[in-house]
């Protein structure tokens, strides 16, 4: 679905041209001057001359590569290219979400021009807690209003705005799809991260959906990689016919690991991230992270160009994608219904 992609590119052409070139021109000149000054003290000069983005990342560079690429694309559409007219100060939490508040505080102390908090509600909340004055651009799957990150979608208020991928919103849809795949199952397992800020609302929605669908839920908790195996083991043990992952960045970034475990345990599972079926998992349903990270990049660029975060409404991604892996289905010994296949945005054969 190319609509979301092209929207971002044309968006800034139409809207931000006016101010953009002027500013970039000035920045270029400043960068050039800084380059001259950098002869003696390069690091200092670079810092003071070109804007700096503080990039607060919950994971390691390897796991975040695809998201970071999308972010860079978004920045590039506004005219910012890392190393040329913008510097990015990365803080990697390496999957230890408890470190996020400290890293966020660190970025605030380093006086960056804008803090980008991608990859989920915990990151946004850590950044928001760290500063009330520095501008923050978030990227998350949850509902920023419900999480108290912003006042409303159209008027975020304060120093924060960003993009929501709707992944949390569609958790019940994953249960529905798993139910469609296993229509006769009386019991389905749900994996949740107890440390996630959205865990309770997701489980609540899932339970009411299960009631409508007429299935029982076996909720399994995992908050670290060590616990993953136990989850899959429990699915088999509890005779649940399928496993539905709640939306959680920790799970999403470990799609490869989860896909391998699903294959090993022969568990049909659905997650939020397309990385899961592409790594051999069965299927995924969730917001398009390429679109959401790209838009986060655009917002970061627009803020560097002087726009106020309160004037930038929170954007919801327009694309929620269904990816199915026919090979995985075959190895699990069943077939997708024609309606699922026809509704899939991408089919891996």
């Amino acid at each position, binding site marked *: *679905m190319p*609509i*979301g992609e*092209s*929207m971002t590119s*044309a*968006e800034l*052409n*139409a*809207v931000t*041209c*006016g101010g953009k070139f002027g500013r970039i021109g000035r920045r270029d000149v400043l960068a050039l001057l800084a380059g001259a000054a950098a002869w003696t003290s390069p690091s200092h000069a670079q810092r003071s001359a070109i804007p700096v983005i503080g990039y607060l990342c919950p994971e390691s560079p390897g796991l975040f590569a695809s998201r970071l690429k999308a972010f860079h694309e978004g920045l590039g559409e506004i005219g910012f290219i890392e190393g040329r007219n913008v510097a990015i100060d990365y803080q990697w939490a390496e999957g230890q979400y408890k470190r996020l508040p400290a890293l966020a505080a660190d970025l605030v102390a380093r006086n960056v021009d804008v803090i980008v908090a991608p990859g989920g509600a915990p990151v946004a909340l850590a950044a928001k807690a760290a500063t009330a004055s520095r501008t923050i651009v978030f990227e998350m799957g949850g509902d920023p*209003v419900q999480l108290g990150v912003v006042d*409303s*979608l*159209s*008027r975020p208020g304060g120093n924060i705005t960003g993009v929501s991928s*709707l992944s949390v*919103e*569609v958790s*019940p*849809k994953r249960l*529905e799809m798993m139910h469609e795949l296993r229509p006769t199952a009386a019991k389905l397992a749900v994996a949740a991260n107890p440390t996630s800020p959205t865990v309770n609302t997701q489980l609540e929605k899932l339970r009411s*959906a299960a009631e*409508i*669908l007429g299935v029982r839920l076996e909720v399994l908790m995992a908050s670290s990689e060590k616990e993953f195996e136990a989850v899959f083991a429990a699915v088999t043990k509890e005779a649940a016919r399928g496993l539905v992952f709640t939306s959680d960045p920790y799970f999403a970034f470990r799609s490869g690991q989860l896909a391998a475990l699903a294959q090993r345990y022969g568990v049909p599972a659905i997650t939020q991230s397309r990385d899961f079926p592409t790594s051999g998992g069965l299927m995924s349903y969730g917001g398009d992270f390429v679109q959401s990270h790209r838009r986060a990049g655009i917002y970061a660029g627009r803020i560097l160009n002087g726009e106020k975060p309160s*004037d*930038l*409404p*929170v*954007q*919801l991604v*327009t*694309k*929620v994608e269904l990816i199915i892996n026919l090979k995985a289905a075959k190895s699990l010994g069943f077939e997708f219904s*024609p*309606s*699922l296949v*026809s*509704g*899939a*945005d991408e089919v891996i054969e």
Partner: protein
Amino acid sequence: MEVQQGFRSLFQKYLLVLFMAVAIPLAINGVVEAWFGYRDQRARLDQLLGVQAMSAAAEIHDFIYGITNDLGWLVQLPWNDEPDERRRTDALRLFRQAPAIVALTLLDHRGLERLYISRIGLNRIDSRTDRSTDPAVIGARAARTWFGDVTYNRGSEPYLKIAIVGNRPSVGAVIAEVNLKLIWDVISAIKVGKTGFAFVLDRPGRLIAHPDISLVLRGAEEATSRPFQAIRDAIGSAGVGSATGRDINGRDVAAAAAPVSGPDWTVVVLQPLSEAFGPIYAALKRTAAILAIGTVIAGLLAYALAHRMTEPIRLLEEGTERIGAGLFNHRISIETGDEFQRLADSFNRMAAELALAQEQQERIARLKRFLAPQVADLVDRTGDDGVLKGRRTEVVVVFCDLRGFTSFSAEVAPEQVMSVLSEYYEVLGRAITTFAATLISFSGDGLMVLVNAPVPVEEPALRAVDLAVEMQRSVQELIVGWRSRGYRVGFGVGLASGSATVGRIGYESRFDYTAIGSVVNLAARLCASATDREILMDAEVAEGVGGRRSVIGLGNRQIKGYDEAVPVFGISFDTP
């Protein structure tokens, strides 16, 4: 000084008039051209923006009708009571095709909900809720296609509900919820010129599509939509064509609108005036530049022409001033080959004639010294002193002097001598004037007078005799007085007639008129030999009188310088 000022103002007048003559038509032409250029461009802009608006409206229309067209496929087959898996597959396929659709509701012929599928929420299959009273269903049944009002999902994303029914009741109806955020694709692709763009307002005037998605996501807010409504209203009140106004960034824009039928929206295209009127501004700048250059050229031309016109006048003025000051040899040099040159030439001719006239005047003034006033006047009137040219003519020469004057002058005081001479010449001068004789010279007490030259008179001899008598009479009157004072002087006159050479003699400004010949000598001798109270004349004079006066023959007398004795005549006159 005054002359100088007059000259200057004439130059200024010419300069102004000539400048105006060039600059005004140029300015009028420039203004007219600019005005028509503006009108043409304005009309073209109206037309262009109108077409752009229509084309944009067509694209928005296509977007909406693309969706309704897709929805049409879901209302093709009649419903029965069985669950219909195929319809779900079709609906899911439509989801993939039409990303803007977020939810679909399929109703059967009784208006019961048979299928609800959503991208976000849970699907409902065969819920059989009665939706027959839903305004969407009623609306669609009335007009086949029904468009709801735009709603803002969570106060941010604009959504539109579309309902359509099939071509017969048994196929039921479909209601779709469309996320209008995706019109962005269409709207952002519409370019008006370089920086112009389009936006869409719904019926109440809320912003539902704009290249800046941030504005659309706040479209539900009155504050966001108001400036856009203002543009739409401005176009509405301007009637057909385009209107001008301010956009949210405060730029002046030209805008045109076109309706999107069906959902009853308005598409507005706008273009910054700076860009839309770019060609006009360029043309105006060109015109201004041409005007400026033209004005400079007009100024230079006017200066040159005014200078050319006033320069001869200045030369004429200067020339006449000089000529007026008496410099008659001054010549005005104007080679313009026109009336000015002609005028200068006639000035020069006038100066030459004036010089001639003055010369003659001076000559005549000199003549008056020795000519009788009547003669002088004559010469003056004729303006010709040709009469003074040397020639040989018959004249009567009259000489007179006082007897015993030398001894008298030695005896008395010079004042008395001068007083006597003064009285003497006064009476003689009066007599000479009376008889229109020509005074040739006087020295001491002697006087020489000429009759019949330079101007011939009638009866010269008679006139000369009468003159001599008058001289004797008047001087003798004086002598009576002198004698009473003890001065012993007498007075004698001699006349002779004959041919003599008369003419002007002298050098440069000192000229005299004189007579040369033996007749002069004879007259002088006769005068010398005349005693007091005596008038002696030669035979020729006596003959000339011809008995009209009592001339008495005095017999021959021996005259100095003459070998033979000359017959001499006298005349008696009454003495006081």
